[in-house]
């Protein structure tokens, strides 16, 4: 359950951004999670509101964008989406692939409510 550590790190960063912008509240946080990040997005989604309670991030919606695994074949250079078992290259049959995407664990955007008066 390292999602708790992840949720805490996420809330800390959201708090920093909210404080810097003197936000009234945080409306929405969008994160990108790759299948090879080792993070269960559902568990993170359940923990986020609990960790956010009592902080500037309280009540914020957490939206998770799933990132596809992408590999590049080292033999023929073909780039393709892959599943986590890394099947052989559909173009040349080689199984020597380089991971291009899939480990992401990123904050994409944070929507803040700002006092304009």
């Amino acid at each position: 359950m390292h999602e708790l550590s992840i949720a805490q790190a996420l809330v800390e960063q959201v708090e920093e951004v909210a404080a810097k912008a003197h936000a009234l509240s945080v409306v929405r946080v969008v994160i990108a999670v790759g299948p090879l990040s080792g993070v269960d997005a559902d568990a993170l989604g359940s923990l986020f509101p609990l960790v956010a309670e009592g902080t500037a991030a309280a009540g914020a919606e957490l939206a998770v964008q799933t990132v596809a695994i992408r590999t590049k074949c080292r033999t023929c250079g073909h780039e393709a989406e892959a599943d986590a078992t890394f099947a052989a290259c559909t173009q040349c049959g080689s199984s020597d692939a380089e991971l291009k995407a899939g480990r992401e664990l990123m904050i994409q955007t944070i929507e803040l409510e700002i006092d304009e008066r």
Partner: protein
Amino acid sequence: MCKDCGCGIDPNLHSHGGYAHSHEGPKEHTHPDAHEHPHVHEHPHASAAPAESETRTVELQQKILSRNDEQAEKNRAWLKAHGVTAVNLISSPGAGKTYLLERTLEGLRGRVPCAVITGDLRTDNDARRLQGKGAPVRQIETINACHLNAEQVGRLLPEIADHGIRLLFIENVGNLVCPSAFDLGENFKIALLSTTEGEDKPVKYPTLFSSAPVAVLTKMDLAEHLDWSVAACRSALRQVRPGVFIFELSAKTGLGMDAWLDYLVKLTE
């Protein structure tokens, strides 16, 4: 010798996978977006909010674990400056990390000055097992956390890895999932897999096995008693990590230990 994991194999004969050997952490870490936030720009959506306030979207593109990664980079820089090679040993509980380390410290005694940081939820049993073998050992009790983090390791570095230490083993908490998400500042990860666990674990747990350039198959003395195929296991490892460098050994019988120890010596040369 391979410049990345130092395995002594002609780099032309085995590929390591650019992404892991470039160490994802530092590579992404130096990405300017991650820390300077130059992309912060705001989109007013005044119509959706009350007259006195408005909603703004801040674009961050920042790693969630950026604080851990920053500390990991500090650890990496410290280790490099002190001439220490660090490996992060990750496996399920009971795969034989501590026993392998016991035999490894004995085998490297007088050859390479080593140190160990070992992590468990509770007890200092592992640290006590590893004491008295010529290497400083520190235990991290994580209490409930299922992984080590860069801060825990960084705190211990000055007291444990100074004074001529060349090789630091970080024995992570036994867990095939969580530790792989946390960069500790190591040079690279080594995944251990015992023969009692089943040969398809690499494809079941690709997060770890795809990020470790070196894999160690432990308890090989038991293989003949089990319905376990080394060929199938090697194939599963290569499927998620083409070019992975694989050791087969038994710390108990000594099978394969010489190659392992020679490899570790080479890492420090």
